[in-house]
């Protein structure tokens, strides 16, 4: 090992000395012991590192932090209890576990069952069709489409039950609600034409306002460019059943496009930012087209009276 190799390795040596006994640094430290130039460099390096590390330790920690953590835990526990032990969780699927491939970038059309114990009735859209006419695509049809298209779901998400509109009691007695059910609630919300509490064209203002109100935190990157390039009309906090939703409205090509974000329980070990399911349909009564995208800990709903395919096209522009 030469001086430069040793120097490179020793840069990863923590200044508190905890790594000195590590075999990883043994040879490099030995080289430094016999090389006066390297030894002097190491001494200076450790002083610099120690100074920065000490300054980090002096970064003040808000005294309310622990209280905030415990409050968040308590709130989470209450939410879980009120939801019957699982905010939104995925059901175990059949034995076939699709392999890990090609899902993050492809536009899979799976319809996943998500469960929210309780509150199902309140999610049903007054205008919604119980069967959820999905432009002629039933759940089975969509599943076939998925398989035919060769779109696979990541192994970690194989536990999802592929289904469509089942909002009735699950086999185990729990009440369940599908992503479609939540979408119907979103349609009803949009159709109610409530005023927006905040108006303007500044997404950052909206983000702060929604967050202050306890709404799901918006990640701007989650809004497709095809929609975010439109004119912002307004935003408000909405409730779909028992779920809090951040609700934005854009004007795109002279039509309103509503964006609703609903937070969910995180999918354990789901890669961050990966889309794990999508759905699309048009409400036959209201004519509102819906595109839903399920990510690891949130569901985006995009709704508009634009043609369903047009809405899909807008949501794929990212």
């Amino acid at each position, binding site marked *: 090992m030469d001086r430069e190799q040793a120097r490179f390795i020793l840069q*990863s040596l923590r200044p508190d000395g905890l790594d000195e006994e590590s075999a990883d640094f043994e040879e490099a430290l030995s080289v430094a012991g016999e090389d006066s130039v390297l030894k002097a460099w190491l001494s200076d390096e450790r002083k*610099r590192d120690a100074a920065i*590390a000490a300054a980090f330790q*002096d970064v003040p*920690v808000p005294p309310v*932090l622990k209280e905030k953590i415990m409050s*968040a*835990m308590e709130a989470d526990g209450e939410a879980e209890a009120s939801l019957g032990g699982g905010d939104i969780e995925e059901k175990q699927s059949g034995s076939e576990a699709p392999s890990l491939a090609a899902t993050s970038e492809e536009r899979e059309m799976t319809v996943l069952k998500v469960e929210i114990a309780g509150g199902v009735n309140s999610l049903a859209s007054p205008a919604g069709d119980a069967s959820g006419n999905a432009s002629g695509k039933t759940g089975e049809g969509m599943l076939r489409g998925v398989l035919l298209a060769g779109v696979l779901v990541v192994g970690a998400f194989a536990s999802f039950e592929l289904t469509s509109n089942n909002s009735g009691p699950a086999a185990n007695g729990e009440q369940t609600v599908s992503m479609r059910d939540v979408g119907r609630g979103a349609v009803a919300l949009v159709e109610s034409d409530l005023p927006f509490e905040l108006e303007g064209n500044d997404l950052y203002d909206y983000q702060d306002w929604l967050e202050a109100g306890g709404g799901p*935190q918006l990640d701007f990157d989650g809004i497709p460019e095809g929609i975010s390039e439109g004119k912002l009309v307004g935003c408000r906090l909405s409730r779909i059943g028992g779920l809090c939703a951040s609700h934005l409205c854009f004007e795109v090509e002279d039509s309103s496009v509503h964006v609703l974000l609903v937070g969910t329980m995180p999918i354990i070990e789901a890669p*961050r930012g990966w889309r794990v399911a999508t759905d699309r349909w048009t409400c036959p009564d209201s004519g509102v087209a819906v595109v839903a995208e399920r990510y690891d800990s949130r569901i985006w709903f995009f709704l508009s009276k634009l043609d369903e395919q047009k809405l899909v096209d807008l949501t794929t522009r990212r």
Partner: protein
Amino acid sequence: MTHFEELVDVYNRPLYRFALSLVRDLDRAMDLVARTFVIWSRQPEESSKCDKANTGLFSTLYREHLGRFGSEWGRSGRPIPSAAAGTGVPGELVEPLGSLDLDLLPTLTLFYLQKHDYREIATILDLPVGTVMSRISSGKEQLQGKNAAENDG
């Protein structure tokens, strides 16, 4: 005190400092830490193991940061609140981390928090060990370059 409260006691401060370095906003850093513990607590098999908590909590926080804020907040350019006030420690010793390239910042922050060796940092950030070592080296060079430039200026 429950096992979970003990975890909170041990890790809330370093997690907060890591979060603050990433999001550069006091409230968001607290929110991120609180959410990290909530997520962690939902993994009973994980949260019962102290040895996993040391890397698992930081890994959870980092993933949550990427998921919620993406690169948006990392580009805010807001400086890390100075640690210097009233401590006699030069503020510029902490502040330069805020000017590091974004891909170097998480690695250097974890390195200087000194809770993890470079192999554990690799686990937390889901990076190859060699990449972590390379980033530590590059980050230090950046810091020294900036300090030298400031001293010259």
